[in-house]
């Protein structure tokens, strides 16, 4: 208790300094809480968007009614509380007013949709109205708008489906669950599950999909489910495997990949935020402790033990730290929810920025326990503190004593705690370890670089201009202090530059390509003789095909003359069992494709050529099949063998939404084989969509035409948001980093007030002091920034290599900005702080002694 009172007295006696300390630490912690909370809010927002497409977290489905064994199995894998809702869906031909159209019948229950919302013409939002109860309570249906137009129907009309007459209660305007799969591209009709039975369409032999949707608690990680499911279903169901499990992340494979990137990226952000706050807090705590050495020495002179001296100071620090954390939490609690109000136009629709409890806990932890952990290395130094130091103007523990081992060991808790936090924040042992490892290496490199630069400052200090001479000698003389400042700024700039560097690579991958437009319609099964009709039909309406590829069905017979039928197949090679491929042939790469390796062929293959015709392989496919440039592939093209040689591998821009062929031949080989065409139409005006679709269906009834505009728009909307979030998080981390650097530089200058005052007493004028500070901080800031930025390039590259599939791009702008901004900030902050120090009267100096 005595310690508490003493410590409180110390704090209030030095209340100006205490306020300054609390202010700096609070700013750092607010930055941390904001970054960490924002990260979690964004994560939540994107997850909800992705869930709206599936309408659930997880779906299981089967072609047969789900059995208890099957649902119990699925629910044991979920291993969590859940809400479930069942659905029955099938296709049926629906006739009205002399016209008929294939439709997707959906039987639903209360509880659907679990995520997202269906918008109806009359009732509006299904979630907000009681439209669902009205639907389930009678022989009512909701009908997709397309079908209403096609069959010339109106709300209130009756429609016979199977054996039952239904009343059209409402029209579906927006349905998030219209997925990208072919089957569900038919217009939907919703009804209650009991009404489905009344249609008598479910009979022996009917082709029905029975699904159960699960809603899981917030924060549940669905990503491991698919693997667990696959690993266990074989053992449980043997040859009777009928159910499949889909998580919202897998609903769109590419979207899932992007969401995973986003998840890892946000994990990194959390780490950066943690380390920034850590570097800032550690720096402030240690500096605070260092300024207290003299008080401790006095205490020890008066008979206190080193332990007591340490406790006395530690109690003060913990009190200040806790106080700062509480202030930071209160400020963040009230200001964070206001953020979306301020940037209403800038934030995605429905985005809620919430204060995360875990961020608060971490901030409190940093303020309290963090202070103890960060100050442990100094505890070990106290034992080396000699009261004789009181007679020096600047009390420092003697560094000559041989207690290195104890000293090094005292750093272990910092290391272990940050390692643990890193793993926790990034949710991954690998990323956390990688990060802390890289961080330690960076500290080593920064320390070494700083040592040599400061030594060089001594060597260059033999010049005539007094201010420069003094500045350089200051740096050289006060090497230990300068190194810790250098380390703080260097680590800061490393952390600041890391995220934008990774961001530019990710952005490149996610951003919508600008040189072509995404499709509104896909068409399959176009016969060669129908191409002219199709093109005429479109040009009449002012449109053109934006994509056209022939498609030839063939069976893979041999790889490098090794006949696959003769190869003993291991389970790993099951991939090879399905050997039917859709081949295509094309003159050059399409604009959605990029050459990965090899060369592109020129012109058509010459039959008299001794060379085999060229083959282009999609990169991922080449990897899965273990194919290299120069390998030969033999296909059975509908009973004619055709052999080609792999000339190149190519990647396909996933977000071009263009059809992707694994194997593409040089023209001149497959041309006469039986083929169909795949095509796409882009940029169809909303008003024209139905007319375009109908004219094609009427003229070419066999052609399957799928309206993908809605789903593509939805996926693009989510990726736009991800892209936006990645950018904003990068800016935020730069800003948070600069705030931390600002508080470090300010503190560094303040702690030199004694020295600056001395210069003043010795007759230095304002400008002299100013230029000394300018040079010192200029050198420190610039070199630390350059070293930090170089390290961040190396580190971001390795992070991209390990986590983001090597999506890394050097960003000149960010790099230059970081260096300039950090140097300028160091100098500017130092100068502002100097000004306030200079305002103090030299008398303070005398008082301080």
């Amino acid at each position, binding site marked *: 208790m005595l310690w508490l009172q003493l410590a409180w007295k110390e704090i209030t006696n030095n209340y100006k300094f205490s306020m300054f300390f609390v202010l700096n630490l609070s700013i750092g912690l607010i930055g941390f809480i904001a970054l960490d909370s924002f990260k979690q809010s964004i994560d939540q927002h994107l997850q909800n968007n992705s869930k709206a497409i599936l309408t659930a977290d997880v779906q299981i489905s*089967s*072609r*047969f009614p789900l059995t208890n064994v099957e649902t119990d199995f699925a629910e044991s894998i979920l291993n969590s509380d859940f809400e479930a809702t069942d659905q029955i869906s*099938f*296709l*049926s*031909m*629906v*006739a009205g007013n002399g016209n*008929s*159209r*294939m439709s997707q*019948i959906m039987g639903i229950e209360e509880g659907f949709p679990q995520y997202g919302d269906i918008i109806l013409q009359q009732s509006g939002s299904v979630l907000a109205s009681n439209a669902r109860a009205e639907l389930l309570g009678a022989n009512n249906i909701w009908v997709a708008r397309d079908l209403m137009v096609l069959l010339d129907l109106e709300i209130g009309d009756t429609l016979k*489906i*199977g054996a039952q007459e239904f009343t059209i209660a409402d029209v579906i305007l927006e349905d998030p669950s219209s997925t990208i799969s072919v089957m569900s591209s*038919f217009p939907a009709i919703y009804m209650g599950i009991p009404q489905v039975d009344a249609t008598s*369409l*479910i*009979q*022996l*032999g*009917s*082709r*029905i999909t029975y699904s159960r949707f699960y809603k899981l608690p917030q924060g549940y990680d669905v990503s491991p489910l698919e693997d667990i499911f696959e690993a266990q279903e074989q053992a449980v169901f043997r040859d009777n*495997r*009928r159910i*499949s499990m889909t998580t919202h992340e897998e609903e769109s494979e590419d979207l899932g990949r992007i969401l995973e990137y986003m998840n890892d990226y946000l994990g990194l952000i959390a780490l950066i935020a943690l380390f920034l706050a850590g570097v800032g807090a550690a720096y402030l705590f240690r500096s605070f402790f260092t300024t207290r050495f003299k008080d401790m020495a006095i205490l020890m002179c008066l008979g206190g033990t080193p332990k007591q001296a340490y406790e006395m100071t530690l109690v003060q620090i913990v009190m200040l730290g806790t106080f700062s954390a509480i202030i930071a939490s209160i400020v963040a609690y009230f200001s964070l929810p206001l953020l979306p109000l301020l940037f209403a136009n800038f934030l995605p629709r429905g985005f809620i920025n919430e204060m995360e409890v875990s961020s608060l806990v971490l901030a409190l932890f940093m303020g309290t326990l963090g202070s103890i952990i960060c100050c442990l290395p100094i505890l070990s130094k106290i034992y080396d503190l000699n009261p004789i130091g009181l007679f020096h103007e600047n009390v420092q523990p003697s560094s000559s004593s041989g207690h290195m081992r104890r000293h090094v060991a005292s750093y272990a808790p910092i290391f272990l705690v940050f390692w643990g936090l890193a793993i926790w924040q990034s949710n991954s042992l690998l990323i956390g370890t990688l990060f802390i490892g890289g961080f330690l290496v960076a500290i080593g490199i920064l320390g070494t670089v700083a040592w040599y630069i400061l030594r060089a400052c001594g060597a260059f200090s033999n010049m005539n201009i007094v201010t420069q001479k003094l500045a350089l000698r200051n740096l050289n003389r006060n090497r230990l202090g300068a190194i810790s400042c250098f380390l703080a700024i260097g680590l800061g700039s490393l952390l600041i530059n890391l995220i934008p560097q990774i961001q530019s690579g990710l952005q490149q991958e996610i951003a919508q390509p600008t040189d072509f437009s995404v499709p509104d319609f896909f068409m*399959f*099964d176009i*016969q*060669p*003789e*129908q191409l002219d009709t199709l093109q005429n039909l479109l040009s009449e309406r002012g449109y053109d095909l934006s994509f056209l590829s022939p498609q030839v*069905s063939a069976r893979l017979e041999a790889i490098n003359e090794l006949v*696959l*039928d003769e190869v003993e197949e291991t389970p790993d090679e099951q991939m090879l*069992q399905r*050997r*039917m491929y859709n081949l295509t042939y094309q003159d050059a790469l399409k604009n959605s494709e990029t050459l990965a390796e090899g060369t592109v062929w020129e012109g*058509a293959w010459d*039959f*008299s050529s001794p060379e085999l015709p060229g083959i282009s392989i999609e990169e991922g496919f080449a990897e899965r099949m273990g194919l290299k440039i120069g390998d030969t592939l033999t296909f059975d093209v*509908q*009973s*004619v*063998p055709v052999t080609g040689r792999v000339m190149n591998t190519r990647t396909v821009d996933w977000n071009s939404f263009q059809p992707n062929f694994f194997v593409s031949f040089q023209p*001149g*080989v497959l*041309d*006469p*084989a*039986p*083929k*169909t065409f795949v095509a796409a139409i882009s940029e169809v005006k909303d008003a024209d969509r139905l007319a375009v679709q109908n004219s094609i269906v009427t003229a070419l*009834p*066999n052609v*399957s035409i799928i309206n993908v505009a809605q789903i593509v728009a939805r996926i693009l909307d989510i990726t736009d948001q991800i892209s936006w979030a990645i950018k904003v998080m990068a800016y935020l981390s730069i800003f948070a980093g600069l705030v931390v650097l600002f508080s470090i530089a300010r503190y560094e200058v303040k702690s030199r007030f004694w020295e600056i005052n001395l210069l003043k007493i010795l007759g230095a004028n304002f400008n002299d002091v100013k230029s000394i500070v300018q040079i010192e901080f200029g050198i420190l800031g610039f070199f630390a920034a350059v070293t930090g930025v170089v390290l961040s390039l190396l580190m971001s590259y390795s992070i991209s290599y390990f986590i983001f599939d090597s999506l890394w791009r050097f960003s000149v702008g960010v790099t230059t900005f970081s260096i300039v901004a950090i140097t300028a900030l160091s100098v500017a902050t130092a100068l502002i702080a100097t000004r306030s120090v200079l305002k103090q009267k030299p008398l303070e100096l005398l008082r301080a002694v």
Partner: protein
Amino acid sequence: MKARWLLLVVTLLLPFAGQAQDSFTILFLGDSLTEGLGLETGESFPDLIAKRYKDEGRSNVKVINGGVSGSTSASALSRLQWYIRSKPNLMVLALGANDGLRGLSVPEMKANLSKTIEFAQANNVKVIIAGMQIPPNYGPAYTSTFAQVFPNLAEQYQLELLPFLLEGVAAKPELNQGDGIHPNVAGTKIVAENVYTFLQAFVPPAADMPSGVTAD
């Protein structure tokens, strides 16, 4: 370019052309059911039938599996034009299921199949047409109109009709894959057995065996 391709095809088919007189070629023109979707290589029903001929020593009987997953009746004619170069003697026309599943126009499907049959007959290929049915959930009007097309065509063109390709297999979970529509290994064996039996009357016995002896 086309001429060169033809040359390639002709070269490749020369060995077959030489045997053309005493060999008998059966073309199965179909969809995923013919291709054997979801089955391993050699497990499709045309492959099983071919294996049976081989085991019986009927090496003169050739089988071409012309199944393409997802194909509709619209592609039938152009594919037959491709296969006609291997001089099939008999064509088992097993297309239409995808037209039905995708809800395509029934008259259109009938027209596509008619053109194909006419082309085959003009080229002296005997045609067997396999009847198709679609699941009852498509609605009674559509399913019955659809199923009627095949007997109608058989009557119109004097074809042999295999009443239903998936007879005894369709709608039996134990004979179908998890998708409930493609026969599994056991189901495919039944299909092969049915088709084999049906074909017996139209396929010549082994060339190197006395004509009275059949292996079955």
